[in-house]
């Protein structure tokens, strides 16, 4: 369980995260969605003790993040956005190092490494240096490493960024299987599809603030079921409708080409900010 109260991070005069309040339940997959610079990664870095908050509090399973460091470190697993495997070590050694850092016994480490390499489908590459792995294999190994010490809360910062669609789906399957075991997952993403496919609830961040929070269905319900996109001299225009019939009626009256589709979380973001998630 993650509880965040008025969490704030300032860098000089810039507010990276402002007064964030959020509770994520045990066993939930929660997605922080937003464009680059929205404050998602800063939030994760504060929750994983890599950045000291300027204000507010955060608790992981009841332990305060800034005070109860050693307890929090045992509870959390972290997969950062950037690739930070030890490229001079093999896949096995990367996991072994992590297990040793978390004071796991030798037999426990060996058994867990075998389990996890099977889980992420890298058992055949255990003795290969991580530096020789593809991007997707590295990401899977990072997930295995984060799970090594049996954490109950997992942070995934942009877990599929830069990966091909097939590998992305493999990572999604891994996340679902981990959550099936009761693990709480907080992931950040700017991929709309990823948030919709994986997350029980989504928080949309923009400029350091949480601007919307709810299940993907609830959030989409706020703008309408169907969207009509049309391109005219002023750029792409979006109009939202409760049903397909109203959307068709509206589109019929337009001179330009239109796209009629179901609304998604990006539409929620556009409606609330006037900008696209990637823009």
């Amino acid at each position: 369980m993650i509880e965040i109260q008025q969490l704030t991070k300032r860098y000089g005069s810039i507010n990276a995260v402002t007064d964030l309040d959020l509770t994520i339940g045990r066993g939930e997959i929660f997605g922080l969605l937003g464009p680059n610079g929205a404050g998602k990664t800063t939030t994760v870095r504060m929750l994983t003790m890599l950045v000291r908050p300027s204000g507010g509090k955060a608790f992981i399973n009841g332990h305060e993040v800034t005070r109860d460091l050693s307890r929090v470190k045992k509870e959390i697993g972290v997969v950062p956005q950037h690739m930070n495997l030890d490229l001079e070590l093999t896949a096995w050694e990367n996991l072994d190092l992590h297990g040793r850092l978390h004071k796991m016994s030798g037999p426990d480490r060996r058994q867990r490494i075998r389990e996890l390499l099977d889980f992420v489908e890298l058992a055949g590459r255990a003795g290969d240096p991580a530096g020789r792995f593809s991007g997707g294999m590295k990401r899977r190994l990072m997930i295995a490493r984060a799970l090594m010490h049996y954490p109950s809360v997992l942070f995934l910062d942009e877990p599929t960024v830069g990966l091909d669609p097939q590998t992305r789906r493999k990572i999604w399957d891994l996340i679902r299987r981990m959550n099936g075991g009761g693990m709480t997952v907080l992931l950040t993403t700017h991929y709309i599809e990823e948030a919709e496919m994986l997350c029980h609830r989504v928080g949309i961040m923009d400029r350091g603030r949480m601007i919307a929070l709810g299940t993907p269905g609830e959030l989409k319900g706020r703008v309408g079921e169907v969207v009509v996109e049309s391109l005219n001299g002023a750029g792409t225009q979006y109009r939202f409708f409760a049903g397909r019939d109203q959307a068709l009626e509206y589109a019929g009256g337009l001179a330009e080409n239109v796209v009629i589709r179901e609304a998604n979380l990006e539409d929620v973001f556009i409606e609330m900010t006037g900008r696209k998630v990637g823009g």
Partner: protein
Amino acid sequence: MDFYTVFWREMLVLKRTFIKFFASRLASPLLYLVAFGWGLGRSVQVDGGRYLDFVVPGIIALSTMVTSFNYVGNSLNMSRLYHKTLEEFLIAPISPFSFVLGKVLAGCVRGIVGALVILGLAFLFGAKILVNGWFFLVILLTCTLFGAMGVVAAMIIDAHEDMSNFSTFVILPMSFLCGTFFSPDRLPEALKFIIDVLPLTHASYFLRSVAAGGDVLPFSLAVLAVYTMVFFAAGVLAVQRAR
């Protein structure tokens, strides 16, 4: 025993790259010994003794400094700024003290291997120097001191280029001035005072005295010990602040 995990990782990498490391440790001492031992050394005497016997302890002090500083400093700076592997240690339940100790001990292993390489080469070149427990204690202390200095530099310097600038402005002047290749006795008093304050000077003085069969120098030993404690504490603080 948390420090052992950090040390274990470093030894895995050293084992894998040992031949390359060993070969790299041969190159500069060999050049120094040819240039200063055979070349310049044949026509120079220091206090009635051979220049080769004078210069070998200085080269050992210099080499242990450079090896331990460069290895600990550069690898940690890269790990912090480029590879980002430092985060794996920062979010692990180990103390900054254990982390720094593991890193510095790994620097010591490399520094000591480098010193042994020079000793081996020096004996092949015909150097006549005495090596005892005090000699190795000061080598270990020098490695620890400059390994800890490497941690401090790596944690406070925010660009790889500035690490090499640090070497240029701090390590390089010490390499040449701190009694390694010549005695600072004939230098102007002000410069000699500055040199006497620097830690490498005391490593050179101590090693040279023991190597010549002279006394151990308690003051130099104390200076090295104080510097080591200060830099080690600063290294622990710098890692603590990174969290």
